[in-house]
């Protein structure tokens, strides 16, 4: 057997609770022992639309939290934005419905062996995987600062219990309805300097990740980001979810964001490669 998807299982997961929080749905699934396998940054892939669905592809969602036991056994929690027909179907489900889920998938955030000063940056529902990460980092003795941004207040997902592990939380919104008015990247330099940040972890829209990479490069700090490319399979068999990444050998390769990601080194990703293959890419 190979090491790809080594922990992934296809299960029937029962929806335990489904609550609207701002613009999102916080959804909790009972998944049994599979919850033990999930690490911050991993994602799940869910079949949508029911038995006679016209949607043939799964939908990917970052794991917000994994709870290993409780009255329902292991739980996986997701934060879902009702966006198109698949996510709307999902957020419309009533508790006790079961969904077909493949999890956990993809790479996870790397945890430093030594305590470091980390800044976690989340855009929109991109905050989801950061809370579990914050907890983990905190438990390893890291200082964790967090900044979350969105277009408007209702699109910032920052539940109380999630914030426990965070030393500071900064919010930004495009319309100023919560926190500082402006883009998330505008506050990064100050936060990096004030908190003497050594590593950035991020998750959010691709444009935001690209912008963060600019900043992290400028400060010469490591930037691990969870990317979000359209995925047809989520398990590495279709090659639709690729993006160009410079390897340690200096060669640019089209890597699959579902198995070589979603967590990648921001500095190695060639951003702005939409609709073109970067020059010098292997096989171009």
């Amino acid at each position, binding site marked *: 057997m190979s090491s790809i998807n080594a922990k992934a299982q296809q299960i029937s997961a029962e929806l335990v609770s489904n609550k609207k929080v701002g613009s999102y749905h916080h959804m909790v699934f009972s998944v049994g022992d599979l919850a033990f396998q999930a690490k911050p940054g991993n994602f799940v892939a869910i079949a949508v639309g029911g038995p006679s669905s016209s949607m043939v592809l*799964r939908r990917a969602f970052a794991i917000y939290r994994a709870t290993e036991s409780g009255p329902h056994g292991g739980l996986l929690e997701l934060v879902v934005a009702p966006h198109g027909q698949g996510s709307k179907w999902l957020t419309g489900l009533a508790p006790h419905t079961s969904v077909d889920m493949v999890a956990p998938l993809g790479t996870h955030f790397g945890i430093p062996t030594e305590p470091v000063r980390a800044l976690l940056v989340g855009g929109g529902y991109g905050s989801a995987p950061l809370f579990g990460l914050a907890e983990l980092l905190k438990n390893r003795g890291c200082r964790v600062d967090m900044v979350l941004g969105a277009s408007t207040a209702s699109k910032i997902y920052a539940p109380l219990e999630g914030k426990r592990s965070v030393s500071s939380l900064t919010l930004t919104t495009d319309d100023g309805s919560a926190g500082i008015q402006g883009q998330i990247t505008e506050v990064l330099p100050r936060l990096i300097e004030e908190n003497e940040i050594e590593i950035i972890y991020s998750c959010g829209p691709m444009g935001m990740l690209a912008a963060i990479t600019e900043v992290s490069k400028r400060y010469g700090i490591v930037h691990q980001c969870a990317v979000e490319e359209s995925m047809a399979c989520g398990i590495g068999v*279709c*090659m*639709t979810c690729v993006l160009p990444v410079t390897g340690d050998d200096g060669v640019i390769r089209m890597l699959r964001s579902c198995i070589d990601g979603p967590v990648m080194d921001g500095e190695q990703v060639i951003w702005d490669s939409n609709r073109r293959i970067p020059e010098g890419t292997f096989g171009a």
Partner: protein
Amino acid sequence: MTFSFEANLAGAQLPNPILSASGCAGSGKELSQFFPLNEIGAIVTKSIMVKPRSGRATPRMAETPSGMLNSIGLQGPGVDYFLENDIPWLAEQGARTFVSIAGETVEDYAVLARRMRNLPGVVGIEVNISCPNVENRGMVFSCNPDTARAAIEAVRRNIGGDLPIIAKLSPDVTDIVSIAREVAHAGADGVALINTLLGMVIDTNSMLPKLAQRTGGLSGPAIRPVAVRAVYQVHSALPHLPILGMGGISTGRDAFEFILAGASAISVGTATFGNPQALITVRDELSSLLIERGFSSLQDAIGHAHREITE
């Protein structure tokens, strides 16, 4: 009653008629977590080319009603890497492998065919001629009888041994029977029907084609009626030409449709994206269905929908 599920695909003996579809099972490694690869009839590899290839720019896919478009552009590490890494690994798993090969020139097909000799675990070659011919204004090889023939002849002449050759055809032609006839004459032992249909989705937000390369290949249940028709037509005209049927198969019922239409074996492609265990589901459902309908072997069911109706 004993039931024989064994398949014979143009000479390749397989324990069952369920194959993966080229480009829809990665290198095999990605799926092996979900089922042992030797549980299905054979793995069909993604199409291997002479040199490494980056494939096309993203976006490469769009979901469509009961289907999807893709424009991967045959991304892959090239034949050398493939022979060194994937083939030995697949053989180790006890998997039976159909190697899919694709070229940009007739010479590419010849080169690739020579590399296919004596490979462990390889039971046949699927020749993907549904790709653009750089020597002929990018026209797809299998969309023209002459280039289709040339590509297959190049493989036949160079392959040596008795490895079965299956020519994979594009449905985007006026007369698929004539192309099938042509490749059979050129030395193909069978045909794989069908590759994707050329399609396009326009993103109504950006108001541009959704895929970076504008067009892509349509696959999934949406195209199943076109695929079943192609299999039925070719089996009707060339009843002795073995057919590997595919296009939108996601259940045993779907697979049964292709067998009844005349396929000797079937491939499952897009369904694997929605269900990593689709190949196993299809296999189990098909064998139950055949037994339920009173067949004592897969062989008896092949082409059964062509029988004279006597009521």
